[in-house]
């Protein structure tokens, strides 16, 4: 989210017979104890100021008191004006409103209020004899806030304030793209992109492309619609259009699979992709892959090679698969149990997702162990244990879910 911490500094716009209404331009990032003194001493008070002859004139005649708009903590305050005991007709917002807009570039004139756009939501209060407006939502980085005070029977005055400056330094990187292999089955179902920091949602389609061997952008490769992120928005799932993967479907027949056996592709991630702060990546990324034969055989744990560790040491148990498996699922769909229940340790995944290893926290006691496999574990083509991604209907589909796990025994000696 782009919203920032509350701006805690202060500035003031003063109006009196002698001092014209000023528009103060300053990034209010540094805390300040005294609003009034800040206004008197801040360079902002002398920064580009737009006089309001009407306001000066009106105040000079009818309001010799100093009227100003101050921002401190998280509230905007009209100082030097004694509000009536009850809100005027139309509410306090009729006399005092704050308008948010994107901040102009440094040195440029403030952004004017856009006609037709409503004011910032917030609440009003009379505190210490002054009208105070508190925005309902935190002030956001890179935003401008124009506070407009329209006293009864007098011209409006306004003050311009700024949220903290936006951090525009790129720092987010692409860490990895899975599957890792250079050859992907033609029915590969999903790609995973891992980032070093949270990303923005809803931007992927503009920044991820697949190019053919000639560098042409390919169309309709991935499923459009919702972007599938993890809760931290650091892992994006891209699903190859299943209509082009499933045998017998119209698009599979018409367009072929999104990965043709033997063909060469490049997945391109553009640098401009904004992270959660709205800042582009440090660098773009790419992955070159070739199409391999389709993977239609569901994973069969009987074909996995389990390398049992030695007793009395902390060497890993390893499991080698004949085909690459789904990376994130390998992290949570395999576990080890032993004579004393679940074994604590850490998982490793390597060899282009064809090897899973597990290193225990404590040395292995000798005994019989089991690798517990969740049946929902998928290979890179979405085939599950005992269940291919698409099924020949001449095979009977199990009518009810059976046990969710199966066990592969191994012995530690």
């Amino acid at each position, binding site marked *: 989210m782009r*919203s920032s911490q509350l701006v805690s500094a202060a500035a003031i716009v003063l109006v009196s017979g002698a001092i014209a209404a000023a528009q103060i331009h300053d990034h209010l990032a540094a805390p300040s104890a005294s609003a009034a003194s800040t206004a008197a001493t801040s360079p902002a008070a002398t920064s580009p100021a737009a006089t309001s002859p009407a306001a000066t004139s009106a105040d000079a005649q009818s309001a010799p008191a100093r009227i100003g708009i101050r921002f401190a903590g998280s509230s905007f305050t009209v100082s030097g004006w004694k509000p009536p005991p009850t809100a005027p007709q139309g509410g306090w917002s009729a006399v005092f409103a704050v308008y948010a807009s994107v901040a102009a570039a440094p040195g440029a004139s403030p952004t004017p209020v856009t006609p037709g*756009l409503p004011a910032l939501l917030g609440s009003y209060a009379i505190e210490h004899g002054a009208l105070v407006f508190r925005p309902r939502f935190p002030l956001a980085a890179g*935003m401008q806030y124009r506070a407009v005070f329209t006293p009864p029977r007098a011209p409006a005055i306004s003050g311009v304030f700024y949220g903290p400056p936006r951090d525009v330094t790129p720092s987010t990187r692409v860490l990895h793209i899975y599957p890792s292999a250079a050859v992907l089955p033609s029915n590969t179902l999903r790609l995973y992109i891992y980032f070093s920091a949270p990303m923005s949602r809803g931007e992927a389609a503009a920044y991820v492309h697949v190019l053919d061997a000639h560098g042409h952008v390919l169309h309709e490769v991935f499923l*459009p619609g919702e972007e599938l992120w*993890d809760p931290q928005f650091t892992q994006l799932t891209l699903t190859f259009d299943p209509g*082009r993967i499933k045998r017998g479907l119209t698009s599979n027949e018409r*367009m072929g699979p999104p990965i043709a056996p033997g063909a060469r592709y490049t997945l391109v991630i553009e640098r401009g992709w904004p992270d959660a702060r709205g800042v582009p990546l440090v660098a773009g990324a790419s992955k070159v892959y070739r199409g391999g034969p389709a993977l239609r055989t569901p994973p069969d744990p009987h074909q996995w090679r389990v390398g049992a560790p030695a007793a009395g040491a902390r060497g890993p148990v390893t499991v080698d698969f004949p085909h690459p498996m789904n990376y994130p699922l390998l992290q949570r769909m395999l576990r080890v149990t032993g004579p004393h229940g679940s074994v604590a340790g850490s998982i490793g995944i390597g060899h282009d997702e064809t090897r899973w290893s597990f290193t225990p926290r404590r040395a292995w006691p000798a005994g019989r162990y089991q690798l517990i496999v969740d049946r929902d574990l998928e290979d890179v083509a979405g085939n599950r244990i005992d269940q291919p991604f698409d099924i020949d209907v001449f095979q009977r589909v199990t*009518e009810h879910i059976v046990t969710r796990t199966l066990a592969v025994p191994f012995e530690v000696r």
Partner: protein
Amino acid sequence: MRRATLYRITGAVVGAAALISGAAYARISNNPLNTLATGDAHLMSAGPLAFGPDGILFVGDSIGGQVMAIDTHDRRPASAAKVDVQDINAKIAAMVGITPDQLVINDVKVNPISKNVYLSVSRGRGPDAMPLIVRVERGSDRISVLPLDDVAHAAVQLSDAPASASAADPPNGRPSSRMLTITDMVYVKGDLMVAGLSNEEWSSALRSIPFPFQRTAAQGATIQIWHSSHGRFETQAPIRTFVPYDIDGRNYVLAAYTCTPLVKIPFSELHPGARIHGTEIADLGAGNQPLDMVPYRRNGHDYILINNTSRGVMKLQADDLGAYKPISAPTITNVAGVPYQTISDLQNVRHLARLDAQDVLILTGKSSGPPWQAGPLIGPVNLQTIPLP
């Protein structure tokens, strides 16, 4: 339109009823508002919306892994009125103090009682974006943001953590990366049905959650639905959007899948834990995802209006859906099955919401890039009512 009648997952109800006495259950059931507690409705995100009884709004919270029921206190009956709010994203953004490009409108629904319009909105695009529920008053452009810090609400967790939650540390020390992205919700006489997409597994789980909520939905019904696709091969796939519908006096769910088949599934077969077969009655084309479905009846005929990520708005001829034979062979065309026409006048429709028998609510906005890409929205986003085509 013939809406579906009562559908209830027997097992889940039996489980819920076992927790409390029959008399108390009946009382709570009759007064769902009494089951809501007042306080901070802690949403982590606001996605799909659905209205339940008495102006209760269900909010799908994918990041929070929950569905929140919120009392909108909006239950004064009113007739539908035109809505036309141009540039609604810029207006909401100005109210909450961000730029329009940082505002995402996730769903739009109409309160069937008051006819006021509700939007779920993200203030920001990152994981800590602030969820908002926005109301547009019927027949006006008055916009307000519902306070969520002191509101009657109830939540149900969609906790279906993997069975093999392990004692192992993940290889990179990261917390769980699994997330169920809720794609659609429908309330049908006592049950909230929830469809979603996992970012890691390919599944077709459709949840049915009795309301008032009882603990977590993990103990509720999870149904795996298979659909035959073009004869020989069949597959399991996530449902993207769905609607209850009666065909020839039988209750069905019409479900549109991520790979665009439209499938009918009999309610009678939706039992907890069941793996059942749906029948494909239309294929809406490749490179596309259906987004919303609005059934309606006009001049004695039934229709379903469907908007899509890439293939515009379709008007499906829904008379005699039972008469169409299942698609049984690959067809080398973009579309197949039940006939429909694409409404060329309706472009860039991001959301459809039922308003009344005459009008439908649309949220429109252009996206960057070509249609198949369905990129981020650019330019103004408008909310308006239009006559049903």
